[in-house]
Each structure stands twice: as structure tokens, then as C-alpha cells.
């Protein structure tokens, strides 16, 4: 009878654990792969590892980083944002175990760069000539010198998922507390702040005239004077905006939204020149890639499409099916001559590689 009781209790707790954990395994993605390209190598941050892919050999895996995953500091480490390439072959990458790591691409060794933040590292840090500005989901931006010494911390009231933008002596950050902040890059002192009306989860674009462009969850694109934080113009979009605006030539910027629309908008006054719905019943979480005089966009329903700068569709490929629920997220990444990399989730494949005609060149599937 004791054995039966023990068995019953074990089954109960196993069932409860499965229900509470959503019947999911340990490697379930919290985000999509983040891709950084350095010459002939693409670094793909996804779940427990950063994969180095050889672009000269059809994306073959050349290295899995960090080399020693049993290191206690890596417990619970999950990597998603595009890694930052430091000098001397190091990658700076934040993790979902609240630690910021420096990984040696030569020997795969991982070193804790900063461990005092108490939330996830979702945004890609900004690397400048002599500073690193790293936003954390605890709502703080941390400034470091290149040796890793903390210079200052600036706190906002909500998570920051967006990489800061720098202009001269200032950095500009958007927080999910609905605000954009201009900070003195040397001291972290606030210069101005602006209420955007709703949250923004991606970086603003900054043009040569010092105008910042930011899309928000309030289905709005704002042009902001980086000097004083005043709004120059606002334009409504059809859906919530997740991706960053992309600046093109001739005073035009390109924007996507969560209703899967692609827009061309005049930077002078916010006039929408054209808009196209890329796909129905889905969204676009990345920005458009402006590459070879064309725009490339991917949707959450596994579609990739390209448009010319007049808004006419050039190519379209769909990858999702009932058996293979491919989702594309993030911004397509240009990786050299006629090569575009796209982050994928929903199946085991993490990266799709296309040429400009959207022919699939290769795919990368991590071992685990």
C-alpha cells in the first residue's frame, strides 16, 4: 500500500509540475535568435548558446559558445539579443539569468562582465569608441568603460528592451514607462524626457539633422527634436509599431507595424507616401531591411517579401505550413554579398539564409 501511495503522490506532483510549467521543455524560446555578422562569420545568440556560423561554407557551424556550459555562472543563461563585437575577439552578450557576459571567440571562455542587475538583458548594448551603454529589463541603463568598470546608472520606471542611440555627447533611450530620455553620455544626467503616450520597445532612428523617429504601441510614429525633446510631427499607423524606423535616401523612412503593414513616410512632415499590407492576420516585429535598393520584410507567419522603393512587391516566399509552423521575427540581416539572414522560431531551424531573389541558400538548425 505504501508503494501505491508513493506512486500516486509522485504522479500527482509530476502532473502538477507539467501543468504549471506549461508542459514545456527546458529549451523553450523566450525570444528569437539574435544575429550579428562580422565578415565571414555570423554569431547567432539563441537559447543556451551563441553559434558561430561560417558564411563562406553555407552557414556551417564553426563554434558553439561558450565552450564550457557547465560553468556555474552560466546556470540559467539564455542568450537572445544580437551579440556585440568587442575588440580582441570578444563578444559582449547579456543573458536571461541577469548576467552580462564577455565571451572569448577564440577559446570559448565566458567571463562575467556585470552581475548586479536584477533582471534580464533583452536589449543589445550600445558600443561606442570608449563606452558601453547597456539597458536592462529592470529599467536601468548602465554605462561602462571598455574595461568593464561601471561609470553610472540611470533608472527609468519600466523595462528597457531597446538599444540606446548616441548623438555627440548624448544618448537617447526609450523605456516601456512610455518615455524617451536624453542623457548626458559622460555622466548619465538627464537632459530632457518626453512622454510618448504609450510604450516603445525598439530604438529610435536618428537622422543627420538631429531628428529622432520612434514608433510606439499607440500606433503612432513621432519625429522628435533631439536637441530639446519637442515633437515635430506625429503620424498614425494602422497597427502598433514594434520595429525601428529605417532611414532611406531622399528624406524617406520605412516603417513596419504589428498589423504587418509596410510604410514609406516623408521625414519632413510625416506624410505617408505609400503603405502595403505584407500579409493578413499576422504581424511584423522587426524593421525593414534596406538592401540593394529594395526593402525586405519578414512576418510572424513565416513569410518573407521584398519591395522596391516605390512599394511594388518584387518577391514573396511563404514557409509556414500546418506541419511546419515557421515564424520569422526580428529584422533581416544583410550578411555580405547577396546574402540575407532571417531569425526563425516555431521549428528547430534558427536561421534561414536567402539571396536577394529570396531563394533559400541554406538553413541553420542548432544541435539541441
Amino acid at each position, binding site marked *: 500500500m505504501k508503494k501505491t501511495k508513493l506512486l500516486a*503522490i509522485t504522479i500527482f506532483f509530476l502532473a502538477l509540475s507539467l501543468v504549471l510549467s506549461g508542459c514545456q521543455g527546458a529549451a523553450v524560446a*523566450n525570444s528569437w535568435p539574435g544575429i550579428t555578422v562580422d565578415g565571414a562569420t555570423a554569431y547567432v545568440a539563441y537559447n543556451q548558446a551563441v553559434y558561430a556560423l561560417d558564411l563562406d561554407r553555407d552557414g556551417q557551424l564553426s563554434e558553439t559558445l561558450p565552450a564550457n556550459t557547465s560553468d556555474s555562472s552560466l546556470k540559467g543563461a539564455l542568450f537572445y539579443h544580437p551579440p556585440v563585437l568587442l575588440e580582441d575577439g570578444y563578444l559582449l552578450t547579456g543573458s536571461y539569468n541577469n548576467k552580462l557576459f564577455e565571451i572569448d571567440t577564440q577559446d570559448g571562455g565566458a567571463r562575467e562582465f556585470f552581475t*548586479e542587475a536584477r533582471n534580464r538583458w533583452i536589449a543589445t548594448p550600445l558600443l561606442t569608441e570608449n563606452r558601453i551603454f547597456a539597458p536592462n529589463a529592470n529599467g536601468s541603463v548602465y554605462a561602462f568603460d571598455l574595461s568593464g568598470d561601471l561609470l553610472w546608472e540611470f533608472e527609468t520606471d519600466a523595462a528597457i528592451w531597446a538599444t540606446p542611440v548616441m548623438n555627440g555627447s548624448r544618448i537617447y533611450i526609450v523605456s516601456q514607462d512610455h518615455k524617451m530620455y536624453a542623457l548626458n553620455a559622460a555622466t548619465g544626467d538627464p537632459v530632457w524626457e518626453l512622454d510618448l503616450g*504609450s510604450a516603445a520597445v525598439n530604438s529610435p532612428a536618428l537622422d543627420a539633422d538631429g531628428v529622432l523617429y520612434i514608433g510606439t504601441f*499607440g500606433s503612432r510614429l513621432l519625429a522628435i527634436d533631439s536637441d530639446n525633446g519637442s515633437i515635430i510631427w506625429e503620424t498614425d499607423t494602422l497597427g502598433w509599431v514594434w520595429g525601428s524606423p529605417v532611414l532611406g535616401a531622399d528624406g524617406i523612412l520605412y516603417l513596419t507595424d504589428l498589423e504587418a503593414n509596410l510604410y514609406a513616410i516623408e521625414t519632413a512632415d510625416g506624410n505617408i507616401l505609400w503603405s502595403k499590407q505584407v500579409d493578413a492576420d499576422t504581424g511584423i516585429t522587426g524593421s525593414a531591411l534596406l538592401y540593394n535598393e529594395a526593402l525586405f520584410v519578414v512576418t*510572424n507567419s513565416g513569410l518573407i517579401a521584398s519591395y522596391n522603393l516605390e512599394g511594388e512587391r518584387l518577391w514573396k516566399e511563404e514557409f509556414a505550413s500546418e506541419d511546419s509552423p515557421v515564424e520569422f521575427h526580428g529584422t533581416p540581416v544583410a550578411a555580405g554579398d547577396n546574402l540575407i539572414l532571417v531569425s526563425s522560431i516555431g521549428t528547430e531551424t534558427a536561421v534561414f539564409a536567402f539571396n536577394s531573389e529570396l531563394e533559400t541558400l541554406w538553413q541553420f538548425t542548432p544541435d539541441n
Partner: protein
Amino acid sequence: MLDFIINPFVNILLYIYQFLGAGVNDFGWAILIFTILIRLALYPLTKSQMDSAKSMQKLNEHPDYIKLQKKKKEGKIDQEKFAQEQMELYRQLGINPFGSCLPTLLQFPIIIGMYWAVTKALATSPLQLIELIPEISLQNAATLLPLNSHFLWMDLSQPERWYGLADIITKALPFLNGNGGIPILAILVVITSYFQSKMMTPTSSNPNDQSAAMSRMMALYVPVLMGWISYTYSAGLAVYFVASNLVSLMQYGLMGKLDFSKLLRRKEPAAK
């Protein structure tokens, strides 16, 4: 699987959050208010479960049932005969054998749904937020998201730790490597879960009562499991667990069924 429960729950949580002003602490209060509402809605089931458990306790202490169990233990009757006579006793005493487990089964999806609704609404990663956005039916969702996850000293989206004594703890216990936060909510979850299990488990003086033995084991295991979940997962869940346990205890108290002597009693007195 439980989206038909989780998504309405997410929207109700957001509605309460919006009603409270969508500011600091408000999502914590929204969890507390919704937990109380859920517990009130489940009150008829809870009462039925408690009444049924009490009836089962009476059965276990009934002389005829004790005799019946003794006969079975001594091999004087087989399982089939035991089941027949047990059913006859159920009939005589007016007991529904499923009266205790059916309310539990009905509550289970709601409790799990609440657990997932809190997790989903907090949306702490990009994919979670993308999955959340289409499910929100409130008109001004764009101004509500992301939720302000600060509540008292906690970030509801993170495992709860109180760092008020972190410096002292870190000095005393250097191997903690600076992680000297105290998991106050997880401790509260363990205590309130233990109280709830002990208070709500009917006593039995029948030494052959298997269900009572099982209940005693559960009274130890469940608080540990709940404590571990609260220690590991976001503080929003721990707030829900503590509130849910406290409301259950209050309901039990209002029914006049709180017996604090159960907390100290280590073993049930044997039948004479």
C-alpha cells in the same frame, strides 16, 4: 489548452488594473482583488467539498465501516464484497463518494488558469508580449502595456527577494556571492499553504483510513511544492498563492471550521 479560461482571466486582470489607475502597485492589487473574486465565486464548490470531506470523515469513524475495514484486512471478505458493503454504507449515510473530488476537479482548471493568466499578463519577454497583444480586448490596451510590475518591495515579474538585510547576509555568508535576498513571499506561501492544508484536512481516528494518511502526506508536500514554485517563478504567482490561501482560510473561519489545535497535533488520536 486552457486559453478559453486564461484569456478572459487576462482581460479581467487588465480591466481591474485599469480601473485602479494602472500605476505603481496596481497590478499587485489587481491580482489580490481577482483572487478574492475567484475564491468567492468558487465558494459553493469549496463548501460542498468541505461538507463532503466531513461526511467522509464521519464514514471513516463509523463503527460499521471500521468493522468492515477490519474484516477486509483479515481476509474475511474480498474486494468486491467490501465495495458492495461500502456503497451500502454510503447510501445509508447519504454520502456521495465523488462529492469531495468533483469540486476539486472543477476548481483545478480555474486555479491553473489564474496561474497562467498572471504569468501571461506580466509578459516579461518579447515572445510573451507578442502572444499577449492579440488576446487583449480592452480598447486602450496600448496605454496599459506593459503592466507596471512594481508592488510594494517586489517586481512581480521576477522571483521575489527582499534585500533589506542583503549586506549583513552577504558578509555573514560570503558563499552567496552577493545574492543575500530573503524570499519572504516564498516563506509566506509555505506557511499559509501548510496552515491551509492542516486546517482543511479532516481529522480521522481510524488507523486504517488511507485517505487521511494521504491527506497528511499532501499537507507536507503541497506547501513545499508551492514554496518552490514561488521561490523560482515570478512574484505575481506568489502573491496569488498567498492571497488564495488566506482567502480560503478566511472562508473556512467564517464557516466556523477553523481548528488551530490541528496545527500542533502531530498524530490523530487512535479510536478506542
